[in-house]
């Protein structure tokens, strides 16, 4: 039994499960890194983890605080420079999944990590910026996003497009010449959303145990579409929780 778990734990477990058929993953720091490291210990032991610091096929024994911690280099199959990781490895579309976080995400899964506020020159909040995300979102064969869901993060339209999801809807990615498919799944602490195959609009597909569709609607800044029969995620197994907590314990000891 595993009745006691947090919404964040459910999110990390769901995100790790989502990588089940993934071969290589370009990992963003934070929530994506937690889920990717959980995945290699549960569902996909041979998943190739790639961090933008140039560490390819890395196997950290704890969660790195930054994308370039020493543990990533020490356990990697290959360590390359930043020019090479972006130009040789990411750009040609060699990497299966880009695993990203977001400060804001909109109806068409466009991501903002740049500024909050409509006036770019005078932002209400200055966020860290793009990092590797725009090209990860463009070049990886598909993108999975993991983000906590609230009216702050799920907005009708992002204040700034840092990374393109589906732009203004069907046809945008093709028109822009983006070669990857774009976001195929968004995992939150409340449930999971997928782009509608026709409209590209993020649509609620599953809720986590104990969460209602109305809860998710209340945390979404647009009129959320919902599939006809919404699934309920399987709760974390004892094994998943044990591995996740062990990983986090080793991280805080380090």
């Amino acid at each position, binding site marked *: 039994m595993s009745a006691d778990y947090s919404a964040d734990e459910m999110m990390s477990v769901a995100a790790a499960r989502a990588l089940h058929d993934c071969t290589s993953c370009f990992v963003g*720091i*934070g929530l994506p890194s937690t889920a990717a490291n959980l995945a290699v210990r549960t569902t996909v032991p041979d998943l190739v983890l790639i961090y933008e*610091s140039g560490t390819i096929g890395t196997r950290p024994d704890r969660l790195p605080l930054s994308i*370039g911690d020493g543990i990533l280099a*020490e356990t990697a199959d290959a360590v390359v420079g930043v*020019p090479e990781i972006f*130009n040789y490895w990411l750009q040609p579309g060699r990497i299966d999944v880009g695993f990203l976080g977001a400060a804001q995400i909109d109806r068409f899964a466009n991501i903002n990590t740049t500024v909050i506020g409509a006036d770019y020159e005078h932002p209400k909040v200055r966020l860290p910026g*793009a990092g590797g995300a725009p090209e990860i979102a*463009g070049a990886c064969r598909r993108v999975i996003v993991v983000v906590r869901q609230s009216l702050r993060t799920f907005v009708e339209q992002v204040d700034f497009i840092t990374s393109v999801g589906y732009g203004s809807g069907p046809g945008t990615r093709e028109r*822009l010449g983006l070669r990857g498919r774009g976001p195929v799944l968004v995992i939150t602490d409340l449930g999971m959303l997928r782009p509608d195959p026709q409209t590209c609009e993020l649509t609620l597909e599953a809720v986590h145990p104990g969460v209602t569709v109305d809860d998710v609607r209340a945390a979404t800044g647009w009129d959320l579409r919902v599939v006809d029969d919404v699934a309920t995620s399987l709760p974390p197994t004892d094994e998943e929780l044990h591995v996740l907590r062990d990983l986090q314990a080793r991280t805080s000891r380090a």
Partner: protein
Amino acid sequence: MRVADIVSLTEGVARLVSDGDAVALEGFTHLIPVEAGNEIIRQGRRDLTLIRMTPDIVYDRMIGAGCARKLIFSWGGNPGVGSLHRLRDAVEHGWPVPLEIEEHSHAGMVNRYIAGASGLPFAILRGYVGTGLMDHYPESVATVTCPFTGEDLVAVSALNPDVAVVHAQRADRSGNVQLWGIPGVQKEAVLAADRGLVTVEEVVDELEPVAGQVIIPGWVVDCVAEVPGGAAPSYAQGYYDRDNTVYVAWDAISRDRDRFAAWLDEHGMPPAGVRASASEPGGGDQAGVRASASEPGGGDKTGVRASASEPGGGDKTGVRASAGDRA
């Protein structure tokens, strides 16, 4: 053949970094030239254009201390912790001086360095299209058509800093620099820049080969300074680990202007508005600095503004001439 001069950090900064320069202190999480950044603050440099892919707590300090008028970057955060509060205060409130920003993606920045190091005016990549970055910086991002396929691609302008500052594990006595572990973009930054300052953990007689090493020959570097621990609280593979506690603690220090001013004071660094004398490398008039630092909120803003109103300040000609003498 020209070799790099082995100098003290104080002398290296005094010789190579001038007011108004475009300065790139590079390091991708690993081997961040933290002590060199601290020394630039101590020497009171002003009106710098700071360039870095991942400005972290070093640039947060430099910006909060009033060293910079512009920041060119691609990701400005405290890795694994959160915001850079001095950077945010400068962008959101113009404190202690207004900070112009120019932002890119990592792929864009790295290709700008590659173009700079290659002696080309621009580099080409698949990137930026559809993002807000494309609209805001037409001076450094544009589309270009492939002459062979007709495909539209993105061009980013070359970065050629006046000076690049990097940290490495070792150098020999001719200033040949050896680094290993995550190599980042340091070699490209040095080759793209007019002048190069490298701090190292140790200067040795002979560089023993290490797997995965990158060598930066001494003849493309101007000065090498031995600064043990010079990358802390970041790390130097084979020497020491990243001290995550410092990054976590920086959040509270940097959140508050007074706490930040007190931190500068504790570390012998002048706040914005106080100019260390460039002729006294190593921090100028400490007594004067202390007196002014005791005014909470960081001293005389008027003084800062006056100096910021001379764009591109400092006598670059003199600097160039001296760099040329050594060439």
